[in-house]
């Protein structure tokens, strides 16, 4: 387990599939997190492994990938997985904190839920 700062945001694949939310492509575009190579090694991860990301606002299981992010920072594409853990506190602005949420990340054997499972309608 390591402490991380979570960043969420757009990617080209998320954008390409955003109007096809029930497609395999969308699922693959939003169900992972990018981790710095050093952190990836520290967590003992290998390609295809899953991690549990936990913040004060919730937790979610996603696939782990090495990405071009600094140590201690992870990136999750915007979407239903990211939003399980983003901050719902808007500090009176109406804007939740989608970037820079403190959390922790660990390796897990749990499966990644489908979009429908995530929503609790299946």
């Amino acid at each position, binding site marked *: 387990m390591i402490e991380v700062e979570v960043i969420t945001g757009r990617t080209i694949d998320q954008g390409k599939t955003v109007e096809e939310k029930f497609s395999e492509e969308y699922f693959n575009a939003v169900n992972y997190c990018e981790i710095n190579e050093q952190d990836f090694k520290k967590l003992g991860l290998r390609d295809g492994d899953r991690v549990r990301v936990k913040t004060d606002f919730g937790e979610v299981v996603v696939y782990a990938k090495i990405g071009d992010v600094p140590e201690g920072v992870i990136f999750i594409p915007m979407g239903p997985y990211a939003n399980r853990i983003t901050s719902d506190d808007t500090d009176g602005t*109406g804007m939740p904190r989608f970037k820079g949420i403190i959390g922790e990340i660990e390796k897990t054997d749990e499966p990644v839920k489908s979009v429908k499972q995530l929503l609790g309608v299946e």
Partner: protein
Amino acid sequence: MADAVCTFCGNVCDDVEFDVNTQKGKRLCALGLAKFREKERIKSPMINGKEVSYEEAVEETAEILVNAKKPLLYGWSSTVNEAIRYGIILTEKVGGVYDQCSSVCHAPGTLAIIEEGIPGGSLGTAKNRADVIVFWGCNPLEAHPRHPARYSAMAKGFLIKSRKDRKIVVVDVRKTKSAAMADKFIQIKPGYDYAIISALRALVKGEDIEAREVGGVPKEVLAELADMMKSANYGVIFYGLGITQSRGRDRNVENAVKLIQLLNRHTRWVIWPMRGHYNVVGAGEIPAWEVGFQYAIDFSRGYPRFSPAEFSAVEMLLRKDCDAMLVMSSDPAAHFPWKAVEHMKNIPVIQIDPFPNMTTLLSNVVIPSAVAGIEAEGNVYRMDGIVLRVKKLVDSEYWSDEKIVHEILKAVERRL
């Protein structure tokens, strides 16, 4: 091939072509091509999962809205101005709350305008004049792919004849795809935008800063950037959600605006947000002229009140303050924090959208619509506030958003 205007992102590229028969396009980026291509649609209007006629869905919607004490009408950034205008009037009539996608996107920029204004320019000024462009907390190559070529980094114009006439700076917490096009990439620590902008303000003013680094950036790098900004002939900061969604939010933008105010005492600079959806600007402009505010507007007292802390969609849902919700061409179930989504499960939800999405799964009434820019025409606001008319390329059995909302408005008026 038919001339088209793209209805994906805030670029609203008006030079694209698409052939609905062959599903091929010209000059479309990956996002635009995906937008125009055929995909799974909502087949028919539905009430509680049962297929119904448009008329029945409209009546049911009106019934829900009229009977609700405080319905929330949310979305509006991916439809045309004509539909938005009816949506505002509809919200006023039912005494509901109007909010739009900005409130989870660039609305902190609106709060900054309220504090400081905005020294800005249209995209054509960047193209024609900007010899320095800074992309701050935005990733155009993934979010607005043709922005650099058409409007900014690589665009040629009146004073800028080639890419060599211009310096590009990218400031971000991670090395995004867009970092590759920068002459100077500055990687900052997450949440330090405000502090870095403050340091730049001091340096531009000619003051020294005591810290040797700010937000992970050495003082020398900041001093270089400050010099570059001061010696530009015409500079532009394009900023993104890296600023509005991280620590500081509206205060980050406000600070950046103050930096631009200061720079204009030396040379010319403007700042502009990289707005996301193709008509998210319209979703704010139209309520501004119709009722005086851009978003988070409550009509329950018979007149509009603006308060993001109370009437933004996320706050409304978190506090369980709405007892019905209409979602226009948006997917809050996928894009809102989970606790806000949970309240959507407890209240009647009406969805108007061409495509099924996660919100569909939570909706009691689903009204499929024609895709604006392919099956329906109308006006939209490009990210810089310039209006373009998106085109109808093909006939469709689906009703347009404009017609759907107008019919709902009429059905509501019959009940009042």
